[in-house]
């Protein structure tokens, strides 16, 4: 779906068209689920975050000014929902410490021989991401994967910009140390 079609759907949804909003949901929900999963690190929690994000989006669609893309707007809402969810989860649940992290299946689609190596490297990166504390992971996911600004990240996570930068630095440092423990070059092909 091209950007013009999405703009048209957003405009219709702002006018109250539920069909248009449903089309937006159908078009974006896998991407939003991916972000939610990367932020909360759990499939069931990610599903809850996604549902809450679309509820908020539905309630707030009329206020969407269109300065950013609809996907970026949804990313910000999802980040905010995930942050709220993680705060609640930390208060009510104690996750066991585990060395093994459930890695999602990322569909390979290229040359199988070369792709096998790339998949291993990518899996290492995803694994390293998932083993970061949620507060550090949120910032590096939003900044380095989804390209949100420091200002937007600080706004959605309810922290200062400088705190966001400090977390980002710590997260990147941990990832680098994990991927290059002996100075090896392991993320070249990822």
């Amino acid at each position, binding site marked *: 779906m091209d950007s013009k079609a999405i703009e048209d759907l957003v405009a219709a949804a702002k006018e109250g068209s*539920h069909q248009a909003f449903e089309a937006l949901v159908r078009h974006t929900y896998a991407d939003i689920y*991916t972000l939610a999963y990367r932020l909360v690190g759990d499939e069931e929690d990610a599903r809850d975050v996604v549902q809450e994000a679309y509820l908020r989006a539905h309630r707030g669609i009329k206020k969407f000014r269109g300065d950013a893309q609809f996907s970026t707007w949804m990313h910000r809402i999802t980040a905010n929902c995930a942050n709220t969810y993680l705060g609640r989860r930390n208060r009510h649940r104690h996750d066991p410490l585990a060395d093994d992290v459930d890695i999602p299946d990322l569909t390979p689609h290229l040359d199988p021989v070369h792709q096998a190596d790339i998949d291993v490297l990518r899996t290492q990166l995803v694994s390293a991401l998932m083993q970061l504390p949620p507060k550090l992971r949120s910032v590096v996911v939003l900044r380095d*994967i989804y390209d949100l600004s420091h200002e937007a990240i600080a706004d959605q996570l309810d922290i200062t910009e400088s705190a966001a930068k400090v977390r980002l630095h710590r997260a990147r440092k941990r990832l680098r140390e994990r991927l290059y423990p002996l100075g090896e070059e392991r*993320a070249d092909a990822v």
Partner: protein
Amino acid sequence: MPYKTLTAPAGDCHRFTAELSEVVDGGQCLDQSALEHFGSCLRCQAELAQYKKLLRALSNLRGQVITPDDFLLTDILKALDRAGEGWRRHLTVLGERPAFLRGPGAVAATAGAAAATAGAIVLANRLSSRYRLTG
């Protein structure tokens, strides 16, 4: 955009490596002495290269979508259904969704209608067989 600059005392790598993740992001640039340090320090050069590769690898993850199961879309639409009357009307007008998408009331109504239809068929059969017996 104003840049902070780093000073670079020679041989003091750890002071710079702590800032490299910001340098690679474009948030900071190096002053002349830092550039001279990096020009001659293989360790710092290696770390900077690793950060660049890390950021490229992270950026590449953007294109990787984790496919959710088939029920997620249904669950989202159900959540929207529960949330508002307007949305419920939309789903009803569409008229192509199973009853479970339209909430517990619709499920009960559908079940009731099915039971009534079944009851009517049974009654009709009984009446018909009675008339055949008496006729």
